[in-house]
């Protein structure tokens, strides 16, 4: 098990429990789409992975490391978390230096090579020497994500990676994430954009009122409309229309395919 949340309880200073006994086990190589209403705890979940936040009870184990026992800067060698706003992250004078920042901090071997490979994966290698703020907003977002993948961690987590991306950048992102998935990286994606990520992911995790209300394959999800409604999640229009046209809701995955676990 690459990621294990064992009976995790967490509350912010205000005293309200965000999680009241969260239990999740994620296998290596999974691609998990995390959905739920605003305020369900999706971003908090990501921050619990790398020790930015620590559970008040229970444990979070990532690649065998208990987050209680290690500082964030150590956990960052195993899990990279990319937050929503690229302007919270980019500060280097060139795109290449920005991509090198994480692998250098983490003491990875050949940080420059890791950075160049990551830029190539996200089609930013041609802009390696320009200032990050000379990139368009969509490309800056891709750079923030590419910089995370340059750290070559086992787990990559993204908070709303498709926001601010235009269509071409979305395609680059999907191809890059698919590539990372094929390299057996474990991907966690928090997003409202089910249309974009459902075909890519192996599992969908729905958070509702501080606990897991669903954790299974996308096919199992589309069969369970009641659960979707109760969790405040709606399938994108095109997925809802597809059955009316005799098509499986998710392309490439027949409707009668059984749950993966």
């Amino acid at each position, binding site marked *: 098990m690459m990621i294990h949340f064992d009976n995790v309880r967490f509350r912010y200073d205000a005293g309200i429990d965000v999680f009241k006994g969260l239990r999740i086990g994620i296998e290596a190589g999974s691609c998990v789409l995390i959905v739920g209403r605003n305020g369900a705890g999706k971003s908090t979940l990501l921050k619990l992975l790398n020790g930015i936040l620590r559970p008040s009870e229970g444990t979070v184990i990532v690649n065998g490391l208990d987050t209680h026992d290690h500082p*964030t800067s150590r956990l*960052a060698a195993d899990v990279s978390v*990319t937050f929503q*706003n690229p*302007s*919270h*992250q980019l500060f280097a004078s060139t795109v290449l230096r920005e991509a090198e920042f*994480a692998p250098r*901090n*983490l003491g990875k071997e050949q940080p420059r090579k890791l950075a160049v490979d990551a830029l190539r994966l996200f089609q930013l290698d041609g802009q390696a020497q320009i200032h990050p703020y000379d990139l368009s907003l969509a490309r800056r977002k891709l750079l923030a994500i590419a910089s995370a993948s340059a750290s070559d961690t086992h787990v990559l987590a993204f908070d709303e990676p498709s926001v601010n991306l235009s269509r071409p950048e979305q395609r680059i992102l999907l191809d890059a994430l698919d590539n990372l998935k094929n390299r057996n990286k474990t991907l966690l994606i928090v997003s409202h954009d089910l249309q974009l990520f459902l075909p890519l992911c192996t599992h969908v995790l729905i958070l509702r009122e501080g606990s897991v209300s669903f954790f299974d394959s996308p096919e199992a999800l589309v069969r369970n409309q009641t659960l979707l409604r109760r969790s405040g999640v709606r399938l994108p229009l095109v997925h809802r229309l597809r059955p009316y046209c005799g098509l499986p809701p998710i392309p490439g995955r027949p409707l009668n395919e059984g749950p993966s676990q």
Partner: protein
Amino acid sequence: MRFDVGEKLSATLFLILLAIILPWYLNAALVLCLLIARSTVPSIRPASQVLRRRFRQLSGYFTIVVVLMTLVNGLLMEGGTQWEVPGGFSISRVGLEFGLRTGMRLLVIATSLLLFFGSTTIPRIAQFLQSAGWPVQLVMTLLLTLHFVETLPDRVSMIFTAQEARGAPVRANMFARTKGFFLILSPLVLSAIVESIDRSMALELRGFHRGTKLTFDGETAAPGRMTIVSLAFLVLSFFCILWIILQWFQQ
């Protein structure tokens, strides 16, 4: 004991001027008095738990700055008694006194300003300034600046979190935090400028423009009217300014 915005503002001005006049040991005593007053006087107590925590953090930073300033001046300046320290350095009495004098002044000024802004909300400041006759556009500019400063710690925290997640130990110690802060200065300023433009557009789109007066619910009578307390502090401030000018001429 309740102080209104005008009284707090004139008291802050007086304290700043007093800090310039007093010797370092009296300034140190003044800081202690202000810290005691903070816990005992309701109108200058920080308005929320977040502000109390920020007050503690910022007071801590300023104290460290003062200590460093004192030591550095002691090492760099010469004169008076010299004390030998390990490493082949010596600290001079003159340097230490200079550092303490400057540092304590800074601490009084910082503590006074922190107490004022920590216990007075931005709307109250706006209400006071407008009723004191400030042009509305100027009031609004000041408010937008104060609003940015108020949200600065949260912004810095978000940026630090993003950098920590990339393996940068920006919260490891004071040195790391200071280094980290310089690294994020340019994205911070850029995002502030963009947000200010958007904010001013939003205000105009809601009808705020040249000549509009801001209106407030709640207290409208008290702010802007000169009270005895405000007048007393302003008179004392005037005498402080006179004293400073006299001292300057005598040098």
